[in-house]
C-alpha cells in the first residue's frame, strides 16, 4: 500500500485541526477547508495510483548475463537497462532483483541508464531473475511495486559436486583430511544440498530457509596463489565424444572460475608420461581458454607407460621381507634391485611436471581426469611431485572411477 510522506501527514493533521475548529466554532468555512483537504489527499492518492499503473505497464527490462556457463558459487556480471514512462512529478528508481538463490541484493537502476552488477549463485539448478521493484514517489505518497514479468534470462547453474574425502564414500583407504580447510573462519566456496551424514554445523540456515530444503556450506580450502589446473587427457579409445565434451566444459568452467575467484591460475595438460601443454600463471581469461582450445583425446606416445616413478620404486625397495625363508630372500633381493634402479632412474615426466609446479607457485592442484583403469601411474608421479612441494591435491574424476594415492580430496566430476 502507499506510504504517506511527511507532507501528507502534515496536511492530514491540518485537516483534523480544522475539523476541531469547525466543531468548536461551528464555522462553515473551516468545515469546507477541512473537507477539501481530506478530498485533496484522496485525489492525490488516486492520481498516484494512476501514475503507478502507467509506470508498471510501460516497464521494459533488458538484461544480459556475461557468462554462458554458470557454476555454483562463482560470480557473474549482469548488465541491465530499464526503460519506462515517467509521469511528471514522480521520482522513479527500479531495483533489479537477482535470482532467489543469489547471495546479492541486486542493483538500483535509473530509467534509461544501463547498470552493471555482480551476482553469485549459491545453489545449483535452473533459476531465473526475481523481477524488479519499482520504487516510485511523489510529494505525497511513495510505493515499492514488485514486478515479476521480466525474469529472463533463465540460468542453469551447475553444481560443484564436492565430496570431501575422510568422511565416507572413498573406499576403505585412509585418506588425509585437510583440517585447515574446515577451520572456522575459512571462506565459503559454495553451497550444496545436505546429505545424510553431513556435519549439521555446516548447514546454512539462511539459504535453507530461502530454498525450503537443507543446504550446507562448502569451505574454500586453503587460500594462496592461483590454483594449478591439471588436465589429464584421455586416450582416444577411453572416452566417447559426449563424455569428453562434458569433461571439456567442466574444465573451461573451472578455469573461468579459478581466474575470477583467485589471482589467476596455471594450466597443465598431460597424458601418459607426457606434458602436452603448460600455461604458467595467468589472469587473462581469453589466454587461458586459448590454451584449452583444440584439446581432444590423444594417442599417447607411450601407450603402456605404467611408470610409477622413482619415488614409488624407492618405496618398494624399502619393503622389508616379512617372512623368512625363500620368499623373504626373494623380497630382499628384489628390494636391492629396485633400490639400485631407483637411484639411477630419472623420470623426465616427473621432472617436467615438477618444473611446471615450481613455475606455477600454486598451493593447490586441481586434477581433472577420467581416470583410466589400466594406467594412472603418471598421475601417481604428478601427485607425488605435488606432495613433495606441500601442495594440496584435489582430484575431480567420474563417480566410481576410484582415486590416486596421496590425493587430499576426491570430488565427483
Amino acid at each position, binding site marked *: 500500500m502507499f506510504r504517506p510522506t511527511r507532507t501528507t501527514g502534515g496536511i492530514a493533521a491540518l485537516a483534523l485541526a480544522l475539523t476541531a475548529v469547525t466543531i468548536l466554532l461551528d464555522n462553515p468555512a473551516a468545515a*469546507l477547508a477541512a473537507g477539501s*483537504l481530506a478530498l485533496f489527499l484522496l*485525489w492525490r492518492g488516486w492520481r498516484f*495510483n494512476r501514475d503507478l499503473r502507467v509506470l508498471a505497464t510501460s516497464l521494459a527490462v533488458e538484461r544480459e548475463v556475461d557468462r554462458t556457463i554458470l557454476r555454483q558459487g562463482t560470480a557473474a556480471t549482469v548488465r541491465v537497462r530499464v526503460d519506462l514512462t515517467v*509521469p511528471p512529478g514522480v521520482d522513479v528508481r527500479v531495483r533489479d532483483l537477482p535470482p532467489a538463490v543469489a547471495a546479492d541484493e541486486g542493483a538500483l537502476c535509473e530509467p534509461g541508464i544501463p547498470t552493471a552488477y555482480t551476482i553469485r549463485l549459491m545453489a545449483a539448478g535452473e533459476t531465473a531473475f526475481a523481477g524488479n521493484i519499482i520504487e516510485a514517489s511523489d510529494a505525497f505518497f511513495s510505493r515499492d511495486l514488485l514486478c515479476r514479468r521480466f525474469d529472463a534470462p533463465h540460468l542453469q547453474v551447475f553444481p560443484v559436486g564436492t565430496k570431501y574425502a575422510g568422511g565416507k564414500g572413498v573406499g576403505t583407504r585412509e585418506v588425509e583430511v585437510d583440517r585447515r580447510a574446515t577451520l572456522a573462519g575459512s571462506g565459503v566456496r559454495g553451497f550444496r544440498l545436505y546429505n545424510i551424514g553431513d556435519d549439521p554445523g555446516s548447514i546454512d540456515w539462511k539459504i535453507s530457509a530461502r530454498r525450503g530444503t537443507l543446504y550446507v556450506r562448502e569451505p574454500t580450502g586453503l587460500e594462496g596463489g592461483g590454483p594449478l589446473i591439471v588436465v589429464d587427457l584421455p586416450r582416444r579409445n577411453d572416452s566417447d565424444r559426449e563424455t569428453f565434451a562434458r569433461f571439456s566444459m567442466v574444465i573451461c568452467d573451472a578455469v573461468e572460475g579459478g581466474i575470477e575467484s583467485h589471482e589467476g591460475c596455471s594450466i597443465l595438460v598431460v597424458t601418459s608420461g607426457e606434458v602436452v601443454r603448460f600455461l604458467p600463471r595467468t589472469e587473462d581469461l581469453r589466454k587461458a581458454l586459448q590454451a584449452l582450445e583444440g584439446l581432444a583425446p590423444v594417442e599417447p606416445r607411450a601407450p603402456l607407460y605404467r611408470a610409477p616413478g622413482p619415488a614409488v620404486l624407492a618405496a618398494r625397495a624399502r619393503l622389508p621381507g616379512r617372512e623368512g625363508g625363500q620368499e623373504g630372500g626373494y623380497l630382499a633381493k628384489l628390494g636391492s634391485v629396485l633400490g639400485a634402479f631407483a637411484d639411477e632412474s630419472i623420470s623426465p615426466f616427473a621432472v617436467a611436471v615438477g618444473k611446471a609446479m615450481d613455475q606455477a607457485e600454486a598451493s593447490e592442484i586441481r586434477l581433472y581426469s577420467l581416470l583410466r583403469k589400466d594406467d594412472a601411474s603418471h598421475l601417481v608421479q604428478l601427485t607425488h611431485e605435488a606432495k613433495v612441494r606441500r601442495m594440496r591435491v584435489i582430484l575431480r574424476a567420474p563417480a566410481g572411477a576410484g582415486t590416486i594415492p596421496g590425493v587430499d580430496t576426491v570430488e565427483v566430476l
Partner: protein
Amino acid sequence: MAFDRRFLLLCAGEVLVVAVGDLVVALILQVIVLAAFLGDRRGYPVYAAGVVLFAAVLAASGTIALLGLAAALGVGYALLTLYDYRLARWAGERA
C-alpha cells in the same frame, strides 16, 4: 526545506480561508491556495469540481455534511486500496 515553506504558506492560506467566514469566498480562496501549493496541476479541475460539490452540500445541510464526507472518504480509500491490490497482483504475475 523549500517544500516546508510551501506547507507553511498552505497553513497560512487555510487560516485565511477560515477567517473569511463566507462559504463562497472561502471556496474560491481554498481552490486558489491549493492550486498554488501544487507544482503539477494535472487533473486539478476534477478535484476542484469535487470541492465545489462538497461546498454545495455543505451550504445545503450545514457542518453535518462532514460526517457524510468522512463516510465517502472511507469508501474512497477502500476503493483506492482495492485498485492498488489489483495492480500489485497484476504486476506480481510472471510473464
